């Protein structure tokens, strides 16, 4: 029965209270451990299509008469458009339409960052559109940009309210402490660089619009564009069958979708608006930089008695302020915590969610600080974490729906115990060491999400839901769940998704929510279909429903009878069995979180500052694992992205003008295949008994969270140097080494190095 509930909805750590109609989730969870197909290593169902280059990306779409767009983006970080002349663009060869600030909300005459969209041109070819944009004459009044986060805090330039949090008495905790450490950590801006750039093709047909778009959220695009265009949502059809990466940056329509829609409307033609790689790196969002000024205090037995921090999120011109302070509030059982978070608004490109926004940054600060504290206390870093283990969510004293971080720590032990062996590999300038860091994050998903399933007379099933597969293997995981519940072979299930006109509402693919939100809906749809099949079989074979089951494509009875499924479904001819399912509610009064720990082995060349990551062991608790192979890929991908964030990736800004200098992939350096360490994936794979009919949590984000801190802590173990700023370039590594040398000399009584 449908039930109306008031519940918290969480995406990327942002909570809101909403009314949701949910169906009861009546199914018992499957027993723990690998099943027939769920939990197995299953190659992805759309793998062949993707590897062969046959997957239909938005970038590959060609519609008859389609026009191409180029966007005029502000070359200034802060300016006013005194005048703009679009006529010269309109008269350029091939141009069909040109729009400016007066024509569309997303085009501005007061740009607030380099890359802010000001005007756009649609032409027969991209080259013509680009040439026409160059002809647009603009008179700019250039204004002084605000680029420094600390200055923004002084000026109270914020994108939202300053967020203050306190529990217990921070000052009293400090007074009780035997050891206090204070340090400033900095994290850089990193750029998503999805390989398919942000893009949409808009096509007005009849009285509605079809939007082909590279997106993580078909239904969010539908809702947002319907509102912007003043259309009933069902007049907006959103299609995304394959997309080339998002990592959090493709959750909304951006500027390119409204631009394409407006130009399509004006020209009566389909219009593509695709960002170039360089536009992608200025105007498609980024992981914002942070400054974290942190304090940790403990008694001599290692009990944390105070944690505190000022966190500046250097948001850019717009975006939202992620909870960089989240790990400090949630990861440990500390009674006295005080944090302040400043969402600095700057004349720099806007932030967008990037794989565990806030927690990647905050975990770097907190988990490095913990190791600095452990060193001062002379307590083993793993032991320090165990002594401050949180048994419940300390922000509001709710129980965890499940938490197996202690088991993660236990499994980390043998890797952690290799420290002496690893250090002994040090030779000449190369110093080896081991570090670890814990991880806490959301990833429980939630309602609403729906799936349909249809079973034909051939006994094969099709899952239908209007979700998107952003490259995480969603199609495959959903097929596994449906096959498992229906008791039919995996290859007898197809998954149809990617089209808002063909299937019910489905969750955003962000916040590690796809499997925990959609999986239970698919299972419940499959159960609905299976119940009907059993009902029909009972009538066909004159048996009671309770003695019948469906296994491996056979109807089986308790007394040993067995019939191929098609003996029942074959009766249907063109008829179909239709199942429908919905995601039930999250467990009331509980907090659903993911946990983990990573152990990193690194080597540092102390003469040249080169850091080499040799190995990362990733142990995560994300509930039941659906696809062991796909899960491993997610872990590896998160770690490799994390290594990029830790060592080589940084958006660089010209300090005078606010212009972005690293727009190209030679200057902005994502890891290559040669930068990959040995990666060991170990997933706890214990279903969360309180969470849905699956017990599965999300996995997309957890693996990237502890990477930077684990590496930085391993560097400290190897060299004694405290790296506190990401990325750990050679410059930062050498600075930290020299600082450590000076400290060492001071301690040993020798004069400090100059």
């Amino acid at each position, binding site marked *: 029965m449908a039930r109306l509930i008031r519940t918290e909805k969480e995406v990327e750590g942002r909570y809101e209270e909403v009314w949701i109609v949910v169906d009861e989730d009546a199914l018992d969870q499957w027993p723990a451990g690998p099943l027939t197909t769920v939990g197995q290593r299953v190659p992805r169902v759309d793998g062949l299509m*993707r590897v062969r280059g046959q997957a239909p990306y938005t970038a590959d779409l060609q519609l008859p008469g389609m026009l191409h767009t180029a966007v005029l983006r502000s070359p200034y970080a802060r300016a006013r458009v005194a005048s703009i002349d679009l006529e010269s663009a309109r008269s350029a060869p091939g141009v069909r339409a040109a729009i400016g600030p007066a024509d569309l909300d997303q085009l501005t005459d007061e740009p607030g960052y380099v890359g802010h969209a000001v005007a756009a041109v649609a032409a027969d070819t991209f080259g013509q559109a680009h040439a026409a944009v160059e002809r647009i004459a603009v008179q700019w009044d250039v204004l002084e940009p605000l680029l420094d986060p600390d200055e923004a805090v002084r000026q109270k330039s914020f994108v939202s309210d300053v967020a203050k949090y306190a529990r217990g008495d921070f000052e009293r905790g400090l007074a009780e402490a035997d050891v206090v450490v204070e340090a400033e950590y900095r994290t850089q801006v990193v750029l998503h660089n999805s390989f398919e750039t942000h893009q949409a093709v808009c096509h007005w047909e009849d009285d509605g619009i079809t939007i082909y778009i590279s997106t993580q959220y078909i239904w969010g695009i539908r809702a947002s564009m319907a509102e912007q265009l003043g259309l009933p949502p069902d007049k907006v059809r959103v299609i995304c069958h394959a997309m080339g990466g998002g990592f959090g940056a493709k959750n909304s329509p951006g500027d390119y979708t409204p631009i394409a829609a407006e130009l399509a409307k004006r020209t009566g033609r389909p219009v593509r608006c695709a960002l170039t*790689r360089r536009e992608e790196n200025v105007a498609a969002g980024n992981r914002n930089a942070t400054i974290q000024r942190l304090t940790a205090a403990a008694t001599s037995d290692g009990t944390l008695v105070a944690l505190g921090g000022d966190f500046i999120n250097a948001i850019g011109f717009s975006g939202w302020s992620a909870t960089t302070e989240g790990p400090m509030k949630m990861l440990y059982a500390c009674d006295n915590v005080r944090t302040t978070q400043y969402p600095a608004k700057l004349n720099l490109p806007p932030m967008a969610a990037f794989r565990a926004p806030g927690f990647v940054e905050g975990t770097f600060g907190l988990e490095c600080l913990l190791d600095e504290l452990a060193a001062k206390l002379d307590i083993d870093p793993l032991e320090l974490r165990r002594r401050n283990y949180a048994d419940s969510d300390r922000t509001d004293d709710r129980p965890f729906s499940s938490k197996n971080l202690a088991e993660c720590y236990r499994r980390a032990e043998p890797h952690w115990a290799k420290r002496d062996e690893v250090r002994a590999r040090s030779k000449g300038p190369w110093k080896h060491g081991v570090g670890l860091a814990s991880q806490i994050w959301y990833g429980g998903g939630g309602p609403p999400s729906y799936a349909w399933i249809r079973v034909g007379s051939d006994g094969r099933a099709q899952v239908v839901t209007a979700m998107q597969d952003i490259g995480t293997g969603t199609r495959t995981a959903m097929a596994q769940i449906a096959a498992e519940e229906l008791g039919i072979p995996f290859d007898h299930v197809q998954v149809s998704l990617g089209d808002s006109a063909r299937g019910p509402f489905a969750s955003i693919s962000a916040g590690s929510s796809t499997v925990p939100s959609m999986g239970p809906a698919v299972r419940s749809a499959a159960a609905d279909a299976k119940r009907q099949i059993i009902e029909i079989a009972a009538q066909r074979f004159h048996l009671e429903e309770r003695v019948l089951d469906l296994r491996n494509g056979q109807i089986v009875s308790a007394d040993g009878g067995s019939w191929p499924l098609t003996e029942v479904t074959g009766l249907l001819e063109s008829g179909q069995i239709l199942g429908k399912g919905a995601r039930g509610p999250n467990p009331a009064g509980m907090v659903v979180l993911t946990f983990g720990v990573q152990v990193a082995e690194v080597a540092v060349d102390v003469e040249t500052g080169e850091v080499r990551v040799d190995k990362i062991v990733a142990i995560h608790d994300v509930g039941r694992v659906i696809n062991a192979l796909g899960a491993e890929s997610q872990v590896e991908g998160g770690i490799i992205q994390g290594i990029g964030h830790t060592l080589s990736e940084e958006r660089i800004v010209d300090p005078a003008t606010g212009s972005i200098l690293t727009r190209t992939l030679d200057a902005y350096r994502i890891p290559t295949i040669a930068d*990959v360490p040995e990666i060991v994936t170990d997933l706890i794979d214990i279903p969360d008994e309180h969470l849905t009919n699956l017990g599965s949590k999300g996995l997309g984000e957890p693996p990237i969270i502890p990477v930077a801190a684990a590496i930085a802590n391993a560097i400290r173990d190897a060299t004694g140097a405290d790296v506190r700023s990401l990325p750990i370039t050679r410059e930062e590594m050498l600075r930290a080494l020299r600082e450590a040398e000076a400290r060492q000399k001071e301690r040993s009584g020798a004069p400090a190095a100059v």
Partner: protein
Amino acid sequence: MPELRINGETHSFDAPVGRSLAHVLREDLGFTGTKVACGEGHCGACTVQLDGVPTLSCITLVHTVGTREVTTIEGLRDHPLVAAFVRTDAVQCGFCTPGQVVSAAALVEANASPSQDEIRHAMSGNLCRCGTYPKIEEAIRTWQD
């Protein structure tokens, strides 16, 4: 009209000097398996073979290809590497993957059993943002299985 030899067949094309091979393949001739991710020679997504040599089609001017044989992913669809990539899950979003296969096919053609170092050396110009690298290495190591 100038011609290209692509995957064993001859195609004529009509393009101004300055147009890239990638553009002609994708926009004019419909070989959309070749992807363009950066468009300036930095990422390897657009890799095709010219006479067997991995080449960045986004910065290759189409008029300079001449009589060299162009091999795109469409010409490698039944290469055993394709099945190996699928089997080992060496594909996530898939946008860089055709280029990876094209580079890998040239590698195994020259060296059927490359070492880890050889794989990393030959594949370092094909970036992957999803981080499928460990699986790509496995796919190339086991392509003959």
